[in-house]
């Protein structure tokens, strides 16, 4: 058997982050440059380095937890498998037709995303299932085999199957998948009911196609990674973070990669909820700011907000949850993330009407901000922060000197002159606008749900989040900001906080008043048995698995539903309790309730394996390093002028509050505490800023 150390690995675009949690609760972290062509190389380098630092042998490693962007990169770079699709006759174009909306209006230059399967490789076969599950026509298996052989001859590596109404009765689809696997054994086959047994032919076809498209890529990557871990002498199980923030055995990720597309991003949110529990902050907005985007996730009473579908696309520029059609639809459980196209690299510009815009165009890593001196000429958010003194004039311990003068000149020229402002005031404007854009993401997960952000604490991490967090929070009337220790590797830390999860959802259409409790209980028992069996195959002890059910409810006629908790005890299933829960949630969201019939739409199961989860309160640090000495520099927090500001090593802040203005620096982040706010270390070792009356 393996040991008790756990390693978490988060691969980002620039760096791969590692956290090792030793059996005694000591945590070690590391960062190495990512190796995008073969991501597993950076993983191995980092793990070897970390084991050496901690002095722990490979045999002591009990599990390796991994968040991967391999799936999302395959979509982003169109680097997935050559994929085929087999559909009911008459419906091969459903994937390309989509839901026919456009993400913008009045824009005749719009380009529709290329479908993941070109029309030539979308095959139709004779078969039909009716809306009530009746088989109208049996599936033509000869046609299925013939389609498989044609696709194989075309070089297709992976095939999706989605038949109309297969979510009601999967018989035809399952028979087709079986015949196809026999006919073309070397090709991966994904049948739609294996990933999504729910109504909506476009959403189901798209989800299945994404699965088929990324499957060979992710499967190959995981196989290589497992082989390489074995070479290091690590025989511990590899667990992959899913889009919902849970962990799953690597075998699940190899078969159903569509559940793992946002693997890395979800981990930060889970870490946030776990950190919130440890610090007694039950109501949080988790805020992450990167180079091109910023995102927000709601944690209410310790519960992460999740959703049942999302679209993957590049260059998100709106927090709208209303507009879709910009990308690849996946109806899978996922952390509900609101994202805006505003980040540290976002470019600021004045339009023809005199309006200041920041983003969504980003300078990216190249040419980058003006101050990096890598060829960037258009001012970015980072340039504004440097000009204002909020960021240090040197990066990475003095290795990279920033060109503050060039940044100031670009801001003065592009923004200050047209607006009639000084470079510093224009830079403050850039910050205000970008904070306003990012506030949209926070609003999307709070105000839009009837949640008042003023009652919440902002949790800030990522490279740039802590530079903006206090001002962003103040603009929303939020009073506290939580900065985790080591915000730069927080996503990897979050993975250690994840639990192994199994999700299942089945259609359950019934008026609430006429709910057949016995039949429902039978289905729930079957769902639980399936879940336990699946998790047992992954090595989890059935006695240590908890199952939680929920029911989707809505007014008759609606499509969207609200998910309410459902007891597993048949005798205790009470339509009145369910109705009350639904009405309360509905009133909170929409401000009214109706007397109309309430109906159930689906029953959901989340099974979780109890196990080691990270205890943020119990973390121990490796032996300390020397503190950086305190310095000072002028910083501009407002239009009223420069303030000579203390610059402290973040580790120097203790339980006694330090009054702002003050800037806290560490190896991987800069925390800005504005005038009027205070910051102190809480008993669990994390920093908390109080914004006082500043609102």
């Amino acid at each position: 058997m393996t040991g008790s150390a756990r390693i978490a690995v988060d691969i980002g675009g620039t760096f791969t982050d590692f956290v090792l949690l030793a059996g005694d609760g000591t945590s070690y972290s590391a960062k190495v440059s990512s190796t995008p062509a073969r991501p597993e190389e950076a993983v191995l380098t980092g793990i070897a380095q970390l084991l050496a630092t901690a002095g722990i042998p490979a045999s002591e490693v009990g599990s390796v937890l991994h968040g991967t962007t391999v799936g999302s990169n395959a979509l982003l770079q169109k680097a997935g498998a050559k994929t085929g699709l087999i559909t009911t006759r008459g419906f091969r174009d459903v994937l390309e037709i989509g839901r026919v909306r456009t993400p913008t209006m009045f824009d005749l230059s719009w380009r529709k995303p290329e479908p993941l399967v070109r029309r030539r490789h979308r095959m139709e076969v004779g078969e039909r299932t009716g809306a009530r599950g009746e088989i109208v026509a049996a599936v033509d298996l000869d046609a299925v085999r013939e389609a498989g052989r044609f696709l194989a001859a075309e070089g297709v590596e992976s095939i999706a199957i989605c038949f109309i109404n297969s979510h009601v009765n999967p018989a035809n689809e399952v028979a087709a998948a079986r015949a196809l696997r026999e006919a073309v054994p070397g090709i991966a086959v994904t049948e739609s009911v294996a990933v999504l047994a729910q109504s909506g032919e476009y959403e189901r076809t798209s989800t299945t196609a994404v699965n088929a498209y990324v499957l060979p890529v992710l499967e190959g990557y995981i196989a290589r990674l497992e082989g390489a871990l074995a070479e290091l002498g690590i025989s511990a199980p590899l667990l992959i973070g899913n889009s919902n923030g849970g962990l799953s055995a690597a075998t699940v990720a190899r078969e159903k990669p569509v559940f793992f597309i946002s693997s890395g991003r979800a981990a930060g949110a889970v870490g946030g909820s776990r950190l919130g529990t440890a610090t007694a902050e039950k109501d949080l907005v988790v805020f992450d700011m990167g180079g091109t985007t910023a995102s927000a996730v709601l944690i209410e009473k310790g519960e992460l907000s999740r959703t049942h579908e999302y679209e993957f696309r590049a260059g998100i520029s709106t927090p709208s949850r209303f507009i879709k059609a910009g990308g690849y639809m996946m109806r899978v459980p996922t952390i509900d993330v609101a994202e805006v196209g505003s980040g540290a690299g976002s470019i600021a510009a004045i339009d023809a009407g005199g309006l200041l815009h920041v983003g969504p165009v980003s300078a990216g890593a190249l040419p980058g901000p003006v101050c990096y001196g890598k060829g960037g000429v258009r001012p970015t958010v980072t340039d504004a922060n440097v000009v204002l003194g909020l960021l240090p004039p040197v990066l990475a311990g003095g290795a990279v000197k920033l060109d503050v003068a060039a940044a100031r000149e670009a801001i003065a020229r592009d923004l200050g002159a047209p607006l009639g402002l000084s470079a510093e005031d224009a830079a403050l404007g850039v910050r205000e606008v970008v904070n306003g854009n990012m506030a949209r993401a926070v609003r999307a997960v709070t105000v839009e749900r009837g949640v008042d952000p003023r009652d919440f604490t902002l949790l800030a991490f990522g490279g740039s989040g802590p530079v903006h967090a206090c001002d962003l929070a103040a603009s929303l009337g939020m009073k506290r900001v939580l900065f985790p220790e080591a915000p730069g590797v927080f996503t990897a830390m979050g993975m250690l906080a994840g639990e192994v999860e199994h999700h299942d959802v089945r259609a359950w259409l019934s008026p609430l008043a006429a709910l057949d409790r016995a039949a429902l209980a039978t289905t729930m028992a079957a769902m639980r048995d399936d879940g336990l069996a699946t998790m047992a195959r992954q090595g989890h002890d059935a006695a240590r698995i908890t199952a939680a059910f929920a029911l989707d409810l809505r007014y008759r006629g609606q499509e969207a539903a609200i998910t309410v908790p459902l007891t597993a005890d048949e005798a205790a299933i009470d339509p009145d309790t369910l109705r009350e829960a639904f009405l309360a949630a509905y009133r909170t969201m929409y401000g009214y309730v109706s007397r109309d019939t309430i109906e159930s739409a689906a029953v959901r199961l989340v099974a979780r394996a109890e196990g080691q989860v990270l205890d943020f309160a119990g973390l121990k640090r490796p032996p300390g390093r020397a503190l950086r000495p305190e310095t000072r520099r002028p910083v501009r927090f407002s239009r009223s002028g420069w303030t000579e500001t203390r610059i402290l090593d973040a580790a120097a802040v203790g339980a006694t509050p330090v009054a702002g203005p003050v800037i806290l620096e560490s190896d991987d982040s800069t925390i800005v505490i504005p005038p009027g706010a205070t910051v102190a270390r809480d008993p669990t070792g994390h920093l908390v800023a109080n914004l006082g009356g500043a609102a």
Partner: protein
Amino acid sequence: MTEPANDAITFAVIKSALDTIVDDMAYAVMRTARSPIVRDVLDYSVTICDRHGRILSQAKTVALHLGAVPDAMDVIMARFAGDLAPGDVIILNDPYDGGMHLPDIFMFKPVFFEGALAGFCVVIAHHCDVGGRVPGSNASDSTEIFQEGLRIAPMKLYERGVVNRTLVTIIERNVRLPDLVIGDLEAQYATCNIGERDLLRLFERHGRVSLEAYFDRLIDYGETLTRKAIAAWPDGTYTFTDYIDGDGFSPDPIPIRCVITVKGDHLHVDFAGSSPQVKGAINSTLSFVKSSTYLTVRCALDADVPNNAGVYRCITVTAPEGSILNPLMPAPVAARALTGYRVVDTVMGALAQIVPEKVMAAGEGGNTVVAIGGYDREKREPFVLVDMINGAWGGRHDADGIEGVTNPSQNMSNLPVETLEARYPIRMTEYAFRDDSGGAGEHRGGLGLVRTYELLAGDAILQLRADRTEHPPYGLFGGRPGAPSRNLLTTDGETRALPGKVTLEMRGGMTLRHEQAGGGGYGDPLRRPFAAILRDIADGKLTRQRAAADYALVFNPAGGIDESATATLRAARRA
């Protein structure tokens, strides 16, 4: 404190806040609506107006509705000035009193801040039925407004927060599906309340004086950007004529003609020369013509122009009284959307002469409406399916037309086949691209869609509104027209073509197949790269025979293009 709205940052923050409010409102409608036409097809619109009734911000909803809001607001302001109180909600649908056609019920909620009017939340929804002679209330073959359903003059649905039971009861008794209609009205009401809550937060934060100064500036900003764009266009008059196939009674083509006059930074669009009003229900109110015109001009502006009242200041629209674009009572108007689409196509054709790189060749010509209503024998319930088929875009100056896409005047969605089959006694046997339907061009038009409905049992009334069977979508700059549309009814194995505008009885086992028109091409087909043609052939979007004819190609026996024979053929054609 008076504060000139001169802070660039506050301005940007307020603009973004308004956009967020309408977005949140649009999302609320989708989540709470009951009928598929609203919750799945998204035939509704959301906007916020200031206290003068001027549009401040619009959600990304049906553009065709939004431009009609100013005229509706004029009616509200004139009728209810001084008679508005907190908690009031006004509805209307009468085309001759602020509305467009009867299924579109407008809802307005005046918002009060510190006791005085601060603005309006406006939600327009297409209701699945408002009574009248045909299920769905959308028939193209009615001959007077009185056949088209319940007419609601501007009236208070809520007065100081108290619902008007009399009005609700009249609506309930006059529509075929009262649960869905009342449920959707509730969704509109909830959405108004959400908008009100958020707008008030904005007032609390910025104060009335400051905020209203920024509202003025926002509208001025829309006007400034629009005038700058128009000023760059060459002065002159530009004329274009397009046609509707007929009104369902007469097969005579119905001309829609526009003359655009660019003068300095102002645009005048006149529709003199368009058809007189017609017998069938495709007459369009002037408000709807304005809306169609505004949105088309808006497409020719840059992407960042906000969609507010400032844009409308730069454009005047006129149409002769008694014409199809400005009809007199009691002309029927239920199927007027079709006429709006043709106004869009006509204005686009004229704009192509001004800004050829901003427009596209004609798209499918507007969505096709298939309404099937009857009585479900199994469920013992009435049903009304209102389905809208979208669509294809024409070719652009630098790209092919898109297939499987909303008409740019709508931004609607489609009704999932599985939702449709679960709710109605109908099976869909095909939903696909129509091969060979895109107009040839250097940039070809998008393919039209095919949608086939089989009525499983019982009897029903089928009501069809289709067009472009006689006058296919035009191409531009040498591009060819898209394929004309077809409507095929199959009874006991026999298939016959139907006219585009028809109401008839359908029996179980009968099948309706709509083949939508394809988009027009843009630019000379002979300039289309061979690789693009071969890719369409490989994908089955274009047949070899059709490619040979449209693009003057000679294929070699292996299926590739015989380039020298092709060159010879093309030279002979040019000669």
